[in-house]
């Protein structure tokens, strides 16, 4: 997950809430926002310096790039096999073809020949093997290497018993063969993540501090001097880029204090110092009024989801009727209009609308509209009698206080439940969710790493994603609600092993119908929504990418 800072961020940005989840976006521009790409395809003019602010990244070396900020930099310094457009469509970048074998246990990537790193070294299959092996190694202790977990030989690299990646081979300079331990017909989607970047020999080990701060890549931009920690990162156009060259001369990235980055970004934008910015939530309404009129406003639905995570193994929400009662009792519309001032919209599915083909609006029937009578009768059936204690955990400081109170009040009003709100720091919340005896429900959110519904369904709901520690019974995976349904699991396995995209999408939809439609293993609340101000009077071909970052490789002066 590229979540870390995005989260803290959104948290700050969202005084009232936006739940902090993930990363990417895609698609459908929402209510009344300026059309981001209104002037795409305009003739490009070279030159110009684009300025924006980000919070200090964890890393800009692809071995450990994780949150949106680091991804913004790394993705402009490196080009991998594939790219994903803002609407989630996968296409080839350096790959010329991506071919799975019959049972999707082995993938062959043909690589575009003749491209180089900015130091002149060739970008060949060996460069990919080098980059992936480097990130998966034990010393790297990478937070994102797990994206390679499906590749044969990954575990041996992680525990230090191997130094070469068993599943990777480069029979010739332009062919990369990847053997998987788990059959996956969507493996090529993963290669979009920056951890799958090629690196030149000069990179050395993942612990090479010189390269960590000034990575040499093969992307549309290169660094102008090393990363000045907490101060700035400057990119310049890479004129030897092997694909479509960028128009901008420079990108000046100021590094901002993550605690009030949104405020600083917006102030910088107002003062004319930045060309792209987020805003603090309290100023959203005023900012929209000012900048929407000028055409400097971007607004879109991103591919993240906010939901309640009920504990399904034990406690008051063990039965699906109890969970449905909770869901029916919540008036999502009132909260999105009231607390979120209309900047968020109610959700009725787990897989967000951004996944156009897989999206099933209303798959969660109890999410569509509040129904007090149904809520009451289901609650009686489930033994959720008035006065029943219901634990509700959430993280403080993330702007969740207001909506959590609203939900609790609705549950109290409609069902008479004794809702016990428990706010705590984020890391404590994560820990609490993992504990074996955990009951009740938690506030949670998720954003996709790859444009596939499987990236929601698998990590959050598959039985294998509970990943319980044998001795402590702590849930180590992301399925903290410990939902387990064999029918759902087998549909998912079938989906990842299905080559045909339409067929696969159908299987994912069926799986979501079981877990969300019938079992309500997670209770969807509202989708993730993004808002930016951008100087569209000055720039053209400026839009947002899959990671919610500005499209630096295409933007040009007007």
């Amino acid at each position, binding site marked *: *997950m590229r*979540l*870390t*800072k995005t*989260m*803290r961020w959104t*948290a700050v940005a969202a005084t009232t809430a936006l739940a*902090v*989840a*993930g990363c990417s976006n895609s698609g459908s521009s929402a209510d009344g926002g300026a059309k981001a790409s209104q002037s795409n395809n305009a003739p490009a003019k070279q030159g110009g310096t684009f300025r924006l*602010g980000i919070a*200090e990244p*964890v*890393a800009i070396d692809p071995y450990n790039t*994780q*949150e949106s900020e680091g991804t913004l930099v790394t993705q402009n310094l490196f080009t991998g096999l594939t790219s994903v457009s803002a609407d989630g469509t996968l296409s080839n970048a350096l790959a010329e073809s991506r071919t799975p074998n019959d049972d999707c246990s082995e993938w062959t990537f043909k690589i575009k020949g003749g491209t180089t790193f900015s130091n002149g070294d060739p970008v060949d299959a060996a460069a990919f093997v080098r980059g992936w092996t480097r990130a998966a190694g*034990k010393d790297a*202790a*990478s*937070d994102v*290497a*797990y994206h390679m977990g499906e590749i044969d030989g990954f575990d041996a690299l*992680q*525990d230090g018993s191997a130094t070469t990646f068993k599943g990777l081979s480069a029979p010739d300079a332009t062919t990369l063969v990847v053997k998987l331990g788990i059959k996956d017909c969507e493996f090529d989607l993963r290669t979009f993540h920056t951890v799958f970047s090629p690196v030149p020999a000069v990179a050395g080990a993942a*612990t090479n*501090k010189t390269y960590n701060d000034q990575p040499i890549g093969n992307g549309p931009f290169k660094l102008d001097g090393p990363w000045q*920690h*907490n*101060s*700035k990162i400057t990119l310049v156009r890479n004129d030897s880029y092997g694909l479509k060259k960028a128009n901008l001369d420079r990108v000046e990235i*100021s590094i*901002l*204090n*993550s*605690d*009030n980055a949104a405020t*600083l970004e917006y*102030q*910088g934008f*107002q*003062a*004319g*110092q*930045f060309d792209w910015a987020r805003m603090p939530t309290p100023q959203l309404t005023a900012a929209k009024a000012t900048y929407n009129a000028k055409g400097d406003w971007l607004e879109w639905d991103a591919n993240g989801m906010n939901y309640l995570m009920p504990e399904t193994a034990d406690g008051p929400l063990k039965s699906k009727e109890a969970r449905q009662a909770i869901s029916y009792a919540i008036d999502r519309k009132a909260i999105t209009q009231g607390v979120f001032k209309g900047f968020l919209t109610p959700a009725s599915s787990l897989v967000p609308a951004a996944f156009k083909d897989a999206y099933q609006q209303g798959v969660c029937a109890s999410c569509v509209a509040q129904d007090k009578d149904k809520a009451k009768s289901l609650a009686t059936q489930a033994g959720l009698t008035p006065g029943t204690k219901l634990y509700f955990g959430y*993280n403080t400081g*993330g702007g969740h206080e207001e909506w959590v109170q609203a939900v609790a009040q609705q549950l109290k009003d409609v069902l008479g439940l004794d809702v016990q709100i428990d706010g705590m*720091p*984020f*890391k*404590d919340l*994560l*820990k609490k969710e*993992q504990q074996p005896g955990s009951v009740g429900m938690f506030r*949670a*959110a*998720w*954003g996709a790493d790859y444009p596939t519904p499987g990236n929601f369904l698998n990590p959050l709901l598959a039985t294998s994603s509970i990943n319980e*520690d044998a001795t402590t019974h702590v849930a*180590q995976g*992301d399925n903290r609600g410990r939902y387990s349904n064999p029918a759902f699991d087998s549909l998912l396995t079938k989906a990842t092993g299905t080559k045909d995209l339409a067929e696969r999408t159908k299987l994912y939809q069926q799986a979501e119908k079981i877990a969300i439609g019938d079992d309500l293993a997670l209770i969807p609340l509202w989708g993730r929504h993004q808002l930016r101000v951008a100087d569209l009077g000055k720039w053209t071909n400026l839009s947002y990418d899959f990671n919610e970052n500005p499209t630096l490789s295409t933007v040009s002066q007007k």
Partner: protein
Amino acid sequence: MGRYVLRRLGQMVIVLLGATMILFACLFVIPGDPVGSLAGSDRARDPAVVKQLRARYGLDEPLAVQYVNYLGRLAHGDMGEDYTQRRPVSEILAPKLANTAKLALAAIVIDVVIGAAVGALAALKRYSIWDTVTTLVTTVVVGFPTFVIGMLLLNVFAVQLKWVPVIGDPGDPVQVILPAITLAIVDAALVARLMRGTMLEILRADYVKTAVAKGVPRRQVLFKHVLRNSVIPVITYIGISFGALLGGAIITESIFNWDGVGLAMAVSIQSQNNPIIVGVATWGVGIFVVLNLVVDLLYAVLDPRIRLS
């Protein structure tokens, strides 16, 4: 004098040990795994990675062993490695210390020049309109929270008037003005009040009256007897205040994105990046002890009656 300084330095080591020990114990018994879920991610770190990192930072050792190891490294000037970027703490903090010192110095200059001058004038022209206005303004200013002053200055001078950039190069001297004023303004008001009060007291003192009666020129009385004695409490205050500023002005640095130790502290506390927190605190305690020593030595210089033995 030499022995006094030596003894004070010895005390300093004890204070440093005590302070780091308490801090270390506090930080490492806080629930939650510092390398487990950094920076508030929506997912915890991979258990295998957490295990590797814990071993690398020696977090699997008992607390006492960790502390002794820390002291051993500290004696060699090694403050350890931080948990997010995995770079040496001293390398991360060194430029921040320089930035904070720059800001603190600018603030202190404003404090002393404006605060002392305003206070002295008010005392000399007691009950004049100047005195009344000073008292009124300083009372109001002292009550202002730092973040209000900071946000106000930033919004007016950077966002609206665009006289200074909102975010600038930390090396740009223009960039220091607003945060320095923000830091100095409350202190300057306090210094003014302190200066006024002390001076009024001294102006009434017998030795001043005697000097005036003996016909010593007014200028000489003022500078030799009154001002010199009035700055002693002010120096104590400034010394403590400078120490606090160097320790990191968390709020001001956060508002102005000033890349100093205060900002580092704010960010590190949130992500439980303990090596940075311990590093900043160790430095802060050290500075405080040294400044206290300097202040005590200055006393002796200003007032020969104070003996350092």
